[in-house]
């Protein structure tokens, strides 16, 4: 049983690392990407090829995966962001980019095409992934709560006002994209060395949209919200295994319910704190008890 739970949690934590990148890009910078699976794939294939064929040290391979994903993000980011593509236009451009990258993976020799890469050494253990996740969350929080995060938030809130604060929109948006792609690359490297096998069909557009879904349902402008959402979405399908064919239907229904009941996300523009959770419990508790008449003045 522990083995099974450990497996689910490790995958969930790898997913959260990628979600952290999208949190910065979508939640804090306000741009939507439907092509982040490409960055995960770039990280996964780079790291896996390096350890598998060239016997490079695992950590170096992970770093190389980050780097390649970051460089790849420049390929799509520079032309689209310079052309001031925004919202849906930008999302569609990244969607096309993600699909194109998958096609490239399917037709290259070194990636062994659609057959995929089997037999990758499984270095990504539960404790290792956990340490990586803690580091990633810390770095993400440091980024967001610094001058650089504020500049991104300004760009999300109002383009014109942000420019009037001396902010170069292109640079700020590109910085967030590169940061998020590097994290996606790291997640990819860990993913490849967890599963031991990768193939292009693992990195689809639906995986990209799952990342965005975690950020939007978790709450824009929040770090802890998307983490909670990603954990929720990792555990719901597992907990519902008993429900069999209704499993994914329920999953979809939960998504719809969150968006209808809390369009700003579970923790929109706020962070989870234990003090806040206790206050919330008290408030809910007092709602259940009969209310005393309030004394005014």
């Amino acid at each position, binding site marked *: 049983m522990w083995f099974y739970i450990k497996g689910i949690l490790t995958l969930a934590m790898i997913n959260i690392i990628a979600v952290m990148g999208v949190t910065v890009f979508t939640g804090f910078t306000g741009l939507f990407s439907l092509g982040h699976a490409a960055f995960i794939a770039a990280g996964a294939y780079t790291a896996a090829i390096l350890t598998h064929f060239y016997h490079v040290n695992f950590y170096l391979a992970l770093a190389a995966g980050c780097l390649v994903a970051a460089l790849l993000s420049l390929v799509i980011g520079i032309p689209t962001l310079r052309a001031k593509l925004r919202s849906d236009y930008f999302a569609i451009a990244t969607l096309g980019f993600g699909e194109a990258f998958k096609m490239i993976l399917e037709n290259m020799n070194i990636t062994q095409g659609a057959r995929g890469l089997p037999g990758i050494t499984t270095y990504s253990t539960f404790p290792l992934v956990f340490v990586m996740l803690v580091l990633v969350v810390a770095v993400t929080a440091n*980024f967001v709560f*610094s001058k*650089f995060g*504020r500049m991104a938030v*300004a760009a999300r809130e109002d383009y014109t*006002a942000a*420019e009037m*604060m001396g902010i*170069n929109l292109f640079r700020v948006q590109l*910085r967030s994209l590169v940061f998020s792609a590097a994290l996606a690359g790291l997640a990819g490297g860990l993913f490849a060395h967890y599963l031991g096998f990768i193939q292009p069909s693992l990195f689809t557009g639906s995986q990209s949209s799952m990342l965005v879904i975690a950020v939007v349902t978790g709450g824009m402008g929040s770090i802890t919200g998307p983490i909670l959402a990603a954990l929720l979405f990792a555990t719901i399908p597992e907990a519902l295994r008993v429900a069999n064919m209704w499993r994914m239907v329920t999953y979809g229904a939960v998504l719809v319910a969150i968006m209808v009941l809390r369009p700003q996300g579970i923790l929109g523009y706020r962070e989870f704190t234990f003090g806040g959770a206790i206050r919330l419990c008290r408030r809910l508790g007092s709602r259940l008890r009969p209310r005393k008449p309030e004394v005014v003045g």
Partner: protein
Amino acid sequence: MANILETRNLTKFFGGIVACNDLTFAVEEGTIKGVIGPNGAGKTTIFNLITGVYTPTRGEIQFLGHGIAGRKPDEVVKRGITRTFQNIRLFKNLSLLENVVIALDLRQTRYRLLTALVRPPQVWRKEKELRRTALEYLDTVGLADRPNARADSLPYGLQRKLEIARALALEPRLLLLDEPAAGMNPEESLGLAKLIREIKEKFKLTVLLIEHHMDVVMELCDHIVVMNFGEKLAEGTPDEIQNHPAVLEAYLGEDYQRA
């Protein structure tokens, strides 16, 4: 004193529409200059041209001896021109304090990206200091009592004051105010006029302002430019403007004498 800002033959077309035509005027350093005119006269267009939101079709803008026409907004801000907006553009989902801190970053925050990611004590200290400074700016415009409220929870008039605090935090030499008293009653707008005079003295600013409240304009401004249909109609001191026949005609119509 010397002119801090000069425009020469400044012209902007939008397709066939002339938003601003052959405008030449100057703002003397340390003064308050008003821009008035009927709706659609091209007043805000001038602000957008100066701050780089629009690129002029023709003409020049000189700020402290540098040509800034066609520069991008973020470059113009760095040279020392900041503004507020007619249709308030705050960072709505953020707190009052955060709105000002973002502005402070331009001049005050020097740490680099990699340093920020590791967050050593110097970054903590800097962040604390930024919040203190931001609070001082909020205090200047009288908003220091609830710095953590969300910007869009403020009433309209206070949102305009927050915009002024944010513009001041960018440490400008020239402050452009686009209808700062819009939506205020006469009492409030006179209070605002007093505030503008105070900050002008405190921060040694030059102010260029667009305003419809004539009592504010006449009370505050050393010089006034009157615009109509994208052209300069008149320029002078408040007294001169109040008795200028072309101005009276533009505001009251040709038949004002009979009315």
